[in-house]
């Protein structure tokens, strides 16, 4: 076994190598565009690609190091997303204790996922978390604004913590579900295709975009971008799915199309949130991308959708 295979065993190692090759190609392409037609949007594009280098490198490193490091990393992303959400929305001072407990649910939830304790993982936040937070708020005794507060906190927790923790569950549970590629193979399939789909929908929209698909929420999104993204993502999924997930190519194609559609829905859902709050980006954490929620918006939908799709059809 070579040293390369030891630190990055197949199929994850070669898959990461392909991702980095794509990244290098993107960097070269952006450099060429910047030289031919330097403008504000080419600067923005260069900034975005540079941030991709950071994000993909950190993600790859976490995946390669160990399952514990990966889970801590995924939990930290979830923490950042929840913090960004809580900082964006109006909150009541009396709810600081409630929010403190909401934060505590993050390490607990990711621990359940890491322990491959599916039964607890799947009820902890939607059942216990939501019931407990409402109880805590009632005990604090301020009913003014109660309904809006419990609604926003619960939804934020479901989207940024429960939904995103499906990535960690996929990683831990996948060891048994997917003997060939393991949890890392499933996670790479999900995250890689989700992010690829974002780029594909953006690119097709720029190239062919004519008809707006949902102008009231996200004026930049077009029917052509959406369909082009779904087709490209499904195609790539059919190519890599058998290798990473153990599904045959037709099933992989379906999974890829589902990820593409779910990713679109996640994207526009966070857009609706931002539009309601009157902000353009959810934060300024990632140069060229915005905040962390801007980057994981699609993943908040694709992670649960892909995990439950895979479990339903492939885990007995």
């Amino acid at each position, binding site marked *: 076994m070579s040293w390369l295979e030891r630190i990055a065993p197949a199929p994850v190692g070669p898959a990461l190598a392909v991702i980095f090759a794509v990244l290098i190609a993107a960097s070269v392409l952006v450099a060429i565009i910047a030289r031919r037609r330097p403008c504000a949007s080419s600067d923005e594009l260069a900034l975005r690609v540079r941030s991709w280098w950071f994000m993909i490198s950190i993600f790859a490193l976490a995946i390669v190091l160990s399952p514990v490091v990966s889970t801590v990393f995924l939990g930290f992303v979830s*923490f*950042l997303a929840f*913090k*960004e959400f*809580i*900082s964006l929305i*109006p*909150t*009541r*001072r009396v709810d*600081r*204790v409630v*929010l*403190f407990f909401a*934060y505590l649910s993050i390490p607990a939830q990711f621990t359940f996922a890491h322990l491959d304790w599916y039964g607890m993982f799947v009820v902890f936040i939607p059942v216990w978390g939501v019931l407990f937070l409402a109880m805590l708020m009632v005990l604090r005794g301020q009913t003014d*604004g109660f309904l809006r507060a419990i609604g926003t906190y619960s939804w934020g927790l479901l989207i940024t913590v429960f939904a995103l923790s499906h990535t960690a569950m996929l990683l831990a549970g996948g060891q048994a579900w997917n003997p060939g590629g393991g949890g890392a193979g499933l996670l790479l399939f999900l995250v890689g295709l989700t992010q690829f789909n974002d780029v594909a929908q953006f690119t097709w929209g720029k190239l062919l975009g004519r008809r707006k698909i949902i102008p009231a929420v996200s004026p930049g999104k077009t029917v052509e971008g959406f369909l082009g993204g779904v087709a490209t993502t499904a195609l790539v999924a059919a190519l890599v799915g058998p290798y990473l997930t153990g599904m045959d190519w037709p099933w992989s194609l379906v999974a890829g199309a589902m990820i593409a559609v779910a990713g679109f829905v996640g994207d526009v859902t966070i857009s609706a949130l931002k539009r309601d709050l009157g902000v353009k980006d959810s*934060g*300024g*954490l990632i140069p060229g991308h915005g905040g962390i929620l801007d980057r994981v918006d699609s993943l908040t939908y694709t992670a649960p959708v892909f995990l439950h799709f895979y479990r339903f059809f492939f885990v007995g």
Partner: protein
Amino acid sequence: MVRLLRLGFFALIVRPLLMLVLGTNIRHRERLPAKGPAIIVANHNSHLDTLALMAMFPLKRLDDLRPVAAVDYFDKGGALAWFAKHIIGIIGVRRGQGGEGNPLAPAEAALDAGRILILFPEGTRGEPERLARFKKGVAHLAKARPDTPVTPVMLHGFGKALPKGTILFVPFNCDVFVGEAFRTDGTVDGFMTRMESAFETLTAEAGPAGWD
């Protein structure tokens, strides 16, 4: 030894807390004074404010930073006073006009030694995320050392993460807005007008951050 403790406290506790857990975002970092003597004036809502302002600067400048606080901090004595004086590096000044001599003498001496002073002109920590009336001490200090640049800084979000009267720390995204430096025109009233307009500009940039 104390210097090592101080460095360790900032490198291992303050910076990771502010960067990783809070995720403090500094806007216009380039407007910060590169060297002393200089004065930083900021709004005050949280125990975290002093630490956040000190963490904006590179670690190697730590020895130059001197927060200014009312001397009653030290009067209580004990571990907290030792910590404030040696680890944070606070300079104590007496409150109000009473007493003999120049109450600002220690602050002036620090400026003469080329330090960067950190002051909270609101006096005490006010209502979270709400600007209180400024006190005039810093205007007198600027009058005594008229060449010293004064950099206004708006802290945003810290009063939600750790407001007055609680020890429960809850993470919120925090922002630090650094304004353009200004100098005194030689009068107390003129200085106050400049400082107030500098904070109005920063408030407009920062937007609202209060509780619902």
